[in-house]
């Protein structure tokens, strides 16, 4: 009795409960012997693996129509190896996954640079092409006749699987493996980065996430799982032909996710459990079966547009935003430990140098031969009337735009051709406006993501939860950044719900979280109250003290004069003056440009 109580009160009860439920699940064939029922369950398990693997890619914001193609690639690979080359089943099985992964790697390198709907369409085209390849490559796939009599998998000690019950156990274990794998993946830093990319790829790239690599990883993992499921599918049903892998397969996989609720693990599982048995229930309506299936799909989407699980979850977290009064205050601490580069490195060495940068938009010159340099520890202000090319200059430095001519040198290295995330990792961060932060992540999560990208974790170790210490460091640094920017009171909020001044602070915090050596500030105090701009000034002063180099574009000349050590003036894309605030104040060219003399 005591032991039971201890079990209940201990933190172990939840895992032991799930292990118990799992063990009950695997025993189902012992109480229910109806082969048809077991068959439906087997299809459900395969469906779960496919739905989850599709969800992994969808987490990065990429919707694929090619599940059926990868399923087919896996199925044909293992059927061909086992039947034609008489290879041991499990080698064929892993070869199926490998082949699907290989196709995904090759295809991903080509099509993952497409965005949004264009990627979706290209996977669609790929699937269509593969379907025709399955039909025409007859020496491997036997074309429209299909491959019949595919042998069942062989298990050591058991021999080849015969009954639905045996398949049930195999698929149950496989589905469990995929579920755990996906959970682990979503909870690891890679999963966090997938989600970051899915929410806003542009921000993710600028914060130092190698989006191309991550997307390819997601695509390959997703396809490998689908390929493995394909092998099981082929050896379970013992017959495959090109019609087995029609587009409807992909559509079903998507329907599982949408019906259940995208972006979670439980959602797709619910979706599969609803949608797979549905045609069986509708069998009685014979002629109207397909029509009813469509109708029910429409009705579910119409009434649960966020999916079944999504709607349930939303219903349970209905704390209306208005009822929660937001108490925000700026709490600036003077002391902080975050070091940027070398603390107080006010040596006079050049950090960034731009040589004769030009950028044209068509025939329009936005920047003409801009040359300047900034020394470590300095604060440089860039001022100029609207359309002077200030933002273009920032875009060119952070590689959102490439310069038409000219070179950019950072710490003695030429960084002109690098991609945005490389630039960020070199140590150049740009402050985003709040609207380009991750929209669905809290302030804290926004900062964590920025730190994670730079933490240099080992992907595989992290997946197995072996990067605890790095994780600890990440949390500590998050706290420090929150403190530094006075954002403690807003930690759990979504940035878009915050007042403007706070939003800008979050932008600053996220940029600082990438541990830059050089910070680019785009109009830091626009739209801020006097009090708020004072806070910004104090934070910048702190940052300066800790050795950060800052370039800022700002319209408010008083603010620039107060903060900056040196000022550069742009007009019509050309540098018209450079010097200390005092020099600039007296420069006749500048007065002319600003007052229109």
């Amino acid at each position: 009795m005591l032991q039971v109580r201890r079990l209940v009160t201990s933190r172990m009860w939840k895992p032991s409960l799930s292990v118990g439920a799992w063990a009950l699940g695997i025993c189902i064939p012992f109480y229910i012997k109806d082969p048809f029922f077991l068959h439906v369950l087997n299809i459900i398990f395969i469906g779960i693996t496919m739905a989850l693997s599709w969800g992994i890619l969808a987490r990065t914001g990429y919707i694929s129509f090619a599940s059926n193609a990868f399923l087919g690639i896996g199925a044909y690979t293992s059927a061909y190896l086992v039947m034609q080359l008489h290879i041991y089943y499990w080698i064929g099985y892993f070869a199926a996954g490998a082949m699907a992964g290989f196709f995904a790697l090759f295809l991903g390198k080509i099509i993952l640079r497409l965005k949004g709907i264009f990627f979706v369409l290209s996977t669609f085209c790929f699937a269509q092409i593969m379907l025709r390849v399955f039909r025409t490559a007859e020496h491997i796939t036997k074309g429209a006749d299909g491959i019949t009599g595919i042998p069942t998998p062989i298990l050591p000690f058991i021999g080849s699987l015969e009954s639905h019950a045996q398949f049930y156990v195999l698929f149950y274990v496989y589905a469990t493996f995929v579920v755990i794998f996906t959970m682990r993946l979503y909870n690891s830093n890679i999963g966090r980065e997938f989600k970051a990319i899915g929410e806003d790829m542009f921000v993710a790239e600028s914060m130092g996430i190698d989006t191309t690599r991550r997307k390819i990883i997601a695509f390959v993992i997703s396809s490998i799982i689908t390929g493995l499921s394909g092998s099981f599918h082929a050896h379970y049903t013992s017959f495959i032909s090109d019609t087995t892998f029609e587009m409807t397969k992909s559509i079903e996989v998507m329907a599982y996710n949408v019906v259940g609720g995208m972006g979670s693990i439980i959602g797709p599982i619910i979706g599969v459990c609803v949608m797979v048995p549905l045609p069986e229930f509708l069998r009685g309506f014979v002629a109207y079966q397909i029509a009813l299936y469509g109708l029910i799909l429409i009705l579910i989407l119409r009434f649960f547009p966020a999916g079944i699980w999504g709607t349930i979850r939303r219903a349970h977290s209905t704390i209306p935003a208005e009822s929660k009064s937001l108490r925000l205050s700026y709490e600036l601490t003077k002391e902080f430990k975050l070091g940027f580069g070398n603390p107080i490195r006010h040596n006079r060495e050049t950090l960034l140098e731009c040589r004769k940068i030009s950028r044209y938009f068509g025939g329009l010159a936005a920047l003409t031969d801009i040359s300047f340099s900034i020394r470590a520890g300095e604060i440089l202000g860039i001022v100029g009337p609207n359309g002077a090319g200030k933002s273009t200059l920032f875009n060119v430095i952070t590689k959102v735009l490439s310069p038409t001519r000219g070179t950019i040198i950072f710490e003695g290295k030429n960084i002109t051709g690098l991609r945005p995330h490389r630039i960020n990792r070199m140590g150049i961060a740009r402050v985003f406006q709040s609207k380009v932060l991750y929209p669905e992540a809290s302030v804290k999560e926004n900062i964590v993501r920025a730190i994670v990208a730079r933490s240099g974790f080992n992907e595989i170790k992290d997946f197995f939860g072996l990067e605890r210490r790095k994780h600890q460091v990440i949390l500590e640094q998050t706290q420090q950044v929150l403190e530094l920017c006075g954002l403690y009171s807003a930690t759990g909020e979504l940035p878009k719900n915050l007042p403007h001044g706070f939003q800008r602070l979050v932008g600053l915090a996220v940029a600082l979280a990438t541990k830059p050596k050089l910070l680019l500030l785009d109009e830091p105090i626009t739209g801020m109250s006097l009090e708020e701009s004072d806070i910004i000034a104090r934070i910048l002063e702190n940052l300066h003290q800790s050795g950060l180099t800052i370039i800022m574009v700002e319209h408010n000349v008083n603010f620039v004069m107060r903060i900056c050590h040196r000022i550069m003036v742009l007009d019509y894309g050309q540098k018209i003056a450079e010097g200390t605030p005092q020099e600039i104040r007296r420069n006749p060219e500048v007065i002319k440009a600003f007052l229109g003399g």
Partner: protein
Amino acid sequence: MSLSLFGQIAFNGIVLSSIYVLLAVGFNLVWGILGIFNFAHGHFYMLGAFLTWYFISSLGFNFYIAFIFSGVCIFVMAAIALKGVLGPLRENEFVCVISSLGLCSLIEGLVSAIFGGEARIVNLPVSGVINFGGVFLSFPRLATLLISLVVFSVFLFIVYFTNFGRALRATGSDPEIAQVQGINISRVYFITFCLGTLLAGLGGIVACHITPLMPHMGIDFSLKAFIVVVLGGLGSIPGAVVGALIIGLLESFISSLVNPMVSIIVSFMVVLLILLVKPSGLMGIERIESR
């Protein structure tokens, strides 16, 4: 290849293109203006063809009356599809795509349940051929070409010379500003969807005699529309015409000279290539991302 064979294949290709133009322009409108990627677009094509067959063979209507009746039916069904399914789900692009797939099953399932799944053929009231220098131009196909051209011209007139067309183009370029300027955009959306879907239906009506009709052919035509639109460029009417000509001719030539399967592979390859090289399509408007 002899000149007359070449001419024959080219003629068939052009007839095919004229149908694709109707399909693709409608798809383009619905996708470009409402942002709905409607997989059931081709199903309205199929419905158009089936209704015409039904009116002619079962109710004994003549072709022209059947044409008008089918058109009205398609318009009403499109309105129901928009108001009942696609319109309310338009906010979430992806959910909308999946619901359009549900619509596919619904339409296809109903048609095959009501009319049966076997293939059937419609005969037009016109028959005969002209021998045009060795190229045989059959009257039914010429009629298809001609009616498509008339329908397309009416459509162009609506888009470029009526007040509704002006509202349509304004909504297409910026719905918010159009709204501020006093355009009732939900009305524009409604009419645009019905008009675009009607074009698909009319395509099915004029083409009902060319291929045997089957309930499951809808999705093929959705794909054709999609290929043409991506090729020509989303939001571009001239692009749809050029894309339809390219795909129609390509398909006609490769199907006749090599085999139909290869023609489908080639058209998808072309689209994949276009997506990679110029995602906005041959004549699409390049959107500069401002960030």
